[in-house]
Structures are given as C-alpha cells and as structure tokens.
C-alpha cells in the first residue's frame, strides 16, 4: 500500500473545470499574403459550456467546449489592378513638327496603391466553434538543468533549481470545429468592400459613376479578384482555418498550454514540508525536506487517484 494516497472525485474535477474554463482566455493575431490579396486576423476568445469526464480507460475528456470569440477581426487587403481612363488625343497636331497632340483628354488612374483597399470585418459574435480534448494525465520527474553536480537538495532549493515531480495533461486528440458562420457575413463583406472601393474613386459622384460604369458592378469585380465562391462564409472559414491557420494556432496553443511548458501541477522533490504547513522555516535552520518516490496518477470513471511513497 502506498504511503500517501490522494483522490479527487469526478465532481471535484467538474467544479475545477468550470472555474478554469471561466478564468481562461486566449488572444492571438496573424497575417499572410495570397494571390491578389492579403489577410490577417486578430482574435480574443473565452470559453463557455462543455463537460469534463473521467473515463474508465484512464483518460480525461473535455467535450464540446464552446469557444466564444470576443474579438475576431478579419482584415482583407486587395491589390486591384491599376485602371486608367483618358489620356487619349482629342486634337492631334496636323503638322510634322511639334507635339503629336495639341489637346489630350485628362488621364485618370485608379487602384494604383498596394493594397488599394483594406477592410476589417468584425466577425466576433458571428462565428460559433467548439473544442474537444481527450488526454491522459502523466507524471514526469524533472531534473532541473540548472542544477549543478555539487548541489545537494538544499543548495538546489536555494538556487531555485529543485527537482520536481510534474503532472501533465497529455492530449491524445484536440478537435476545434468551426461549425457555423452566420449568413450575413457574405453581405457584410460585400458592403464593406463596396463602400471602401467607392471611397477610393476620385472626383465628384458623376465621375465615380462614370468610372463604375466602365468597371462594371463592384461585386462582380471583387468576386473576380478574389475568385470568391457563392458561399462566402465557407470561403472565410477556409481562409481563417486553412490559409491563415488560425484554428491550428488555437489547437497548438491548447496543446502547448497543457504540454511540456505547462504542467498542471508540480511538486518539489524533496518536498519542503514547512511549506505544506505554511510554517516559516526558523532562521538559520535548513527546511525539512521529504523525499517523494513513486509518484503516480491513475484515472477511472469515478475519480483520479494520486499515490506516492516517502523516500528513505
């Protein structure tokens, strides 16, 4: 029988999960260049809903955890091919000397910048997604690389490099599903782009109308430039998830969070016992340290159990 046994019920896990979920937040940004346009995102999210389940196979499952996007700004920048009108000769020079043209129609060029148009679509609140994680709790023994050979356990503690038992959530699967983009996203994108392009055109409204008459419908123009499919929501989903890798980024964030960088629990070995009792070590005396051996974690469908032995 182990010297020390600690068990936590599934209900305790549920309480803990709810508190961690409510306290968790995520923020990220990224951008990239694609054929004819640039795109970037800035996101901030929190979590809602979901369940945690201790399973008989020794894994812990977090299921259908909603990712609520407080900020999900998608910025699109378009480099529209330059378009020039005018510049042709109205009254040519009939003589063999002098300029070829006496009077030219003024030349007006639009879409000369790069990118010409940049719009930010506030998608926060318009996208719903959820994450599911299944993982195992594993223990590892960490010998601090900063610990020098001459150090005893007390020297290592003084130097802030004690050995540690660490507990990690080792994710077997992390799924992030983007399962709904509101239909209005397509209309919103087109409206923003139309306004931005109209603002770029020079001159009074009659001139803008003249240029637009030459260009044709802006919506068709944008569709041509972006090679947009009919379902713009699907296109945005691919852009965010595949082209920009936002969802990979979130998955990686979750993986990293629970992987090597972030043990969910760690304990010094040997463990300074006065710390457990919140009693200060008397001045000048060494802290009493208890060696911990055989630190293990097990999970079944009712509880998680931690066992350890006191070393000699």
């Amino acid at each position, binding site marked *: 029988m182990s010297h020390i046994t600690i068990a936590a019920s599934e209900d*305790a896990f549920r309480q803990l999960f709810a508190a*961690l979920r409510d306290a968790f937040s995520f923020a990220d940004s990224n951008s990239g260049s694609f054929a004819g346009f640039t795109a970037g995102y800035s996101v901030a999210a929190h979590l809602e809903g979901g369940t945690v389940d201790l399973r008989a196979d020794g894994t812990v499952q977090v299921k259908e955890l909603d990712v609520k996007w407080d900020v999900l700004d998608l910025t699109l920048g378009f480099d529209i091919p330059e378009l020039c009108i005018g510049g042709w000769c109205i009254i040519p020079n009939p003589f063999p000397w002098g300029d070829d043209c006496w009077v030219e129609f003024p030349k007006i060029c639009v879409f000369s910048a790069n990118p010409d148009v940049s719009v930010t679509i506030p998608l926060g609140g318009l996208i719903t997604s959820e994450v599911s994680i299944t993982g195992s709790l594993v223990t590892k023994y960490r010998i601090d690389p900063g610990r020098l050979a001459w150090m005893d356990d007390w020297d290592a503690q003084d130097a802030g490099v004690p050995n540690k038992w660490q507990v990690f959530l080792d994710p077997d699967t992390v799924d992030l599903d983007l399962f709904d983009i509101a239909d209005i996203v397509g209309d919103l994108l087109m409206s923003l782009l139309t306004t931005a392009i109209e603002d770029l055109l020079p001159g009074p409204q009659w001139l803008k109308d003249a240029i637009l008459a030459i260009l044709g419908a802006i919506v068709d123009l944008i569709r041509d430039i972006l090679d947009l499919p009919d379902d713009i929501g699907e296109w945005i989903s691919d852009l965010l998830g595949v082209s920009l890798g936002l969802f990979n980024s979130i998955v990686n964030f979750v993986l990293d969070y629970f992987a090597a960088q972030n043990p*969910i629990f760690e304990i010094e070995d040997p463990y300074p016992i006065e710390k457990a*009792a919140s009693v200060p070590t008397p001045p*000048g005396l060494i802290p009493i340290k208890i060696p911990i051996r055989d630190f293990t974690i097990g999970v079944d469908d009712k*509880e998680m159990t931690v066992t350890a032995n006191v070393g*000699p």
Partner: protein
Amino acid sequence: MALTDNCDLYGAVHEDGFNLLIRHFMRQRPSWFNFGTSRVAMNPKLWCVPIKPEKVVVKRNNPLMAVEDPLQLPLLGTNAVVALDFCVQIEKLEIDFHPGNVIALPPELAPPLAAQRFALHGRVCASIGCPSDRLVEMVEPPPPLPPPKRGDQDQGHREPPNVIMLPGDDFDCFCLDLFVVGHFEITGSPGAQRLEGKLDGLEIVDIEPGGLESAIECYLEIVTRLVFLPHLRVPLTKLVFDLLDLVTITLTPTPTSPALPNNPAVEDDQVKVFIDFGVGP
C-alpha cells in the same frame, strides 16, 4: 467503492510513511528531539545516545541539540536553587494506526489498539549531571529561610532565589519507553479548522514506585498535550492554493454522516481525511 464516494477529495497517510516522515524530521531537525544545557550540547560525550543528523545539518552548522537553561531544583528550606546540567533525548518515535501492528502496547493501555485510535511509542533517554562531592563541599550552605514576620500580609513573597550552578561530572543515563494512545479530531470553528491529535492515555513502562510513575506520567501528559501534539496540528483552512494561476482552491473537512461516520478516520493502518472542495477566482 470509490475513495471519494462521500467527499470531493480524499487523503490518506500510511503509518509506514508517517514513520519515515518522523525519521526525516529527527535527522534534519535534531534540535526538536534533543535537549540539554549549553555545556551538554557542546560535548557529545555527555549525550545519552549519539545523534545521527543529515550531512547538511552539520554542513550548515544547524544545532544538533536545543540549548535549555539548567535544571533548577529548590534547596528545601532555603531561598536558593541548585542548577544542574541535564540531557533529554528522544531516541525513537514511531506511530501505529489501527489495527495495531507496529507498537506492542503495555497492558496498562488495554491492547489491542482500539478502533479509530493511534498509538505512539517514544524512547526517551535522559540524565542529570551529578556534581562531584568535592564540588558540592566547596559550596557554602545557603542560610535558612527567615521566619515570616508577624502581621506580614505578603508571606508568599520572597526575594529572587540564589542560583547555585553545579556543573555535573557524572552523567548516568536512563531510558524510558513512553506509550501514548490517542485519536485525531478536527477542531476549531469553520474557517479556522485544523486536524489535531488528542491524548487518550499515556504510560511509562517499568518505573517504581507507582506514585513516582504517576507523577512523571502527569508531567509527560502535560508536555504531550501542550508541546508535542500541537506540532502534529494540520491547519486545514490553510490548504488553499492556486492552480495555473487561474483559480484558488479551498479545502474544508467533509461533515460526518451515517455514510461517513469518522472524519478523520484511523483505520487500515492509515489516517484518512475526507475533504470538500471549493473553487474560486
């Protein structure tokens, strides 16, 4: 049956782990287990038993023995006390949780160990530094107490006693086996609760006559209740810690019920504690 059927968290410590824990305490903090006057503390030859500390204790000049004032005994009939060197060492300390299988209890403590009880065994070795005859003869006898004056309202008042320090030459050590039976309770008001040991019985083996044994046991009961058992207190309300720097966990004892008749429970060679769990920001 799951360990947490009646609680959120369950914790248990086996007696073997506890006894290893005690051994680490004795080796790393020997001054909690060895006491003597400064003269005794500085001279290992005057100790009753050798002290075996961890190397780091010596390396960092931690004390092996707690320095105490000399033992002051009154010179009866005088306003003087004689101060003697002494040494008290707890050589062995072990615990046994029900059912008893580590410590053989003396008949006075009605073995076998009762349900929900723990037993402690301590072997204490001590000595008083007895001064040489020559040294005692060199001391001028103190004058007898003056008779109380008539009408003196404060007859109990005395001048501070004269202390006669007599360094000992002869340290004859004796060792006593002390047995304690007790139980654990969760005491204190909600929010300030703690797990502590309570004394049910104490016995010193093989002291004659019986009156002397009773007197020493009375003294040791006081020391056990006031000094030793408080060291075993675990403040439950202080078991609050941060997880991932996101949430704070607070632990409180699970109330007893027909399904959970004892909390803490002393059974299966373990002390078991059942805890309810609170999570906050």
